[in-house]
């Protein structure tokens, strides 16, 4: 440490370099973790982690004779709205799994919402609010009204409300292709942050949807949330293999988003790697210069009986100390920059672009990695110092 303090300008320059490198890593890691968490939160609080639906209906042509070869074109049948067979027992068995957090059955299908002369096609989702709102957090997105649904209440999106000219307490006529129709009262208006979803999504009580969609006592989907969102695909495959049902995870249904998240992680890792390498080479360069500058001191220390490994230790400690001190300054720099950026960067609706996630583990990891990088970077200069011939070193 005294050697470092003895060359204040040199030490200050390399500490600044390390601090900038660590600052960039801390800033990028925390910002990208925040952005990612925000994106995932937005995606996964507006849809289930796994959705179970009835398997696709397929045509099975009857063959008259086993040996007969027919050249037939088998047409894919239209997919009807069907109830999941034995859904209550499935719900119970799924809820009993350790990896599953919430199970919510829903009955959904297409319908037409009308008010006055205005009509819009909608997706009608009937659900049990106690379970479903734990999966799709409609209460979090509510801008007007309440989510306490009675049998004739409906929740609609802001864009559908605008298209139909509907406000809280207004009546909306909902009809389905099955020929059923019912009048609902607008109980709440939500904003999912997506125009398409705000135009089409509507939520009513499960029984109301069952009667409108001609599914008495039936459900079309079972929505699930799991404890580990990144294990959703594995869990979906497991469920699909155990039950006669189609299971799609959010990873499959949001493949592009998931790929983007992965790409972002890879890019972040690469940037951190290159910044780390430049910091390591900076430390190594400064220590090599230090070894050259202090070769006489090293020679004297060797003459006084200092062992090679002690010299090695001195320079390894210097490298580690540079890395550690630089990481402290860099963590403060990165956190400060992140704080300023968090205050200034806003989304179109004025909300924060990303949550400020400054976890202790990030700083601890940055300090540990920077210290280790410093020690590794110091290996070559330290070996050079330890191998110095004291006679040559003293002679200069």
């Amino acid at each position: 440490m005294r050697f470092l303090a003895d060359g204040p300008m040199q030490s200050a320059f390399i500490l600044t370099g390390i601090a900038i490198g660590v600052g960039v890593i801390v800033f990028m890691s925390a910002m990208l973790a925040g952005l990612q968490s925000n994106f995932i939160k937005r995606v996964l609080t507006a849809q289930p982690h796994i959705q179970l639906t009835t398997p696709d209906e397929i045509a099975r042509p009857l063959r008259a004779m086993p040996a007969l070869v027919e050249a037939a074109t088998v047409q894919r049948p239209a997919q009807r709205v069907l109830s999941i067979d034995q859904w209550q027992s499935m719900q119970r068995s799924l809820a009993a799994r350790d990896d599953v957090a919430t199970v919510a059955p829903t009955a959904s299908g297409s319908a037409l919402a009308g008010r006055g002369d205005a009509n819009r096609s909608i997706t009608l989702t009937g659900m049990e609010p106690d379970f479903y709102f734990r999966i799709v957090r409609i209460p979090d997105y509510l801008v007007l009204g309440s989510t306490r649904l009675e049998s004739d209440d409906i929740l609609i999106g802001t864009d559908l409300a605008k298209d139909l000219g509907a406000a809280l307490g207004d009546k909306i006529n909902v009809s389905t292709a099955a020929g059923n129709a019912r009048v609902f009262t607008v109980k709440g208006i939500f904003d999912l942050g997506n125009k398409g979803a705000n135009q089409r999504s509507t939520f009513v009580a499960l029984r109301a949807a069952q009667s409108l969609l001609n599914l008495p006592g039936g459900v079309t989907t079972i929505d699930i949330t799991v404890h580990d969102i990144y294990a959703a695909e594995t869990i979906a495959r497991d469920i699909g293999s155990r039950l006669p049902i189609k299971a799609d995870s959010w990873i499959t249904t949001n493949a592009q988003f998931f790929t983007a998240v992965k790409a972002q992680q890879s890019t972040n890792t690469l940037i951190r790697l290159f910044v780390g390498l430049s910091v390591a080479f900076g430390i190594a360069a400064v220590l090599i210069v230090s070894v050259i500058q202090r070769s006489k001191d090293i020679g004297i220390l060797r003459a006084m009986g200092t062992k090679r490994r002690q010299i090695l230790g001195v320079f390894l400690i210097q490298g580690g100390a540079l890395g550690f001190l630089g990481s402290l300054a860099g963590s403060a720099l990165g956190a400060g920059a992140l704080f300023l950026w968090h205050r200034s960067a806003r989304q179109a609706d004025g909300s924060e672009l990303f949550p400020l996630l400054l976890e202790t583990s990030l700083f601890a990891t940055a300090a540990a990695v920077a210290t280790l990088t410093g020690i590794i970077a110091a290996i070559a200069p330290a070996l050079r110092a330890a191998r110095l011939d004291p006679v040559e070193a003293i002679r200069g």
Partner: protein
Amino acid sequence: MADVLVLDSIRKSYNLGNEAESEVLHGIDLSLKAGELVALTGPSGSGKSTLLNIIGLLDRPSSGTVCINGQITANLPDSALTALRGHAIGFVFQSHYLISAFTAAENVMMPMLVDRGHRDAAMRTRAEALIDDVGLTPWRDNRVTNMSGGQQQRVAIARALAMDPTLVLADEPTGNLDSVTADGVFELIQRINAERATTFLMVTHNMALAARCHRIVDVVDGRIA
């Protein structure tokens, strides 16, 4: 008086490449007794520095034996030579070669620090006693860069005595000093030699100072004249 140092037929050659060799020392025999103050003189290029490096265990002879305090060093590994050098030999160089990052007392503590196993308080006490002994009490905690050449050389002498060695090798310790300061430094060496019975082998070109030593060893063309 016991022999502190015995050199027997020391030869040193340097490889010049193409199998050509240059012999710098041609069979040196020398012994130093405890408490001797010996001047090593000779013209530049005569082999004095090479001889001093071999005596100081910083270099190995091509042939012959070096015996320090009765221990033959020829077959000792580097680590044992380093340990022996740290305990038995002190060095004073023409340029003081103190570590500029440290104070006078810290420089004197350095040999004890690298030896390990010394308590902080004991190191500090010994360093301060040695600093006092060389007449630098007020400068104990001064950075060595803020001291004069004579003061720095006194600190270097105190550092050489830190491990209480039996032999101190001084390579032109007064070479960079003016005559008055050089005289003061030499008198300090004389006093320490008398009081502590520490053997000093001092390379010098100053024949007046050499004449004040117990004995002069003159090296000419790699041989003792």
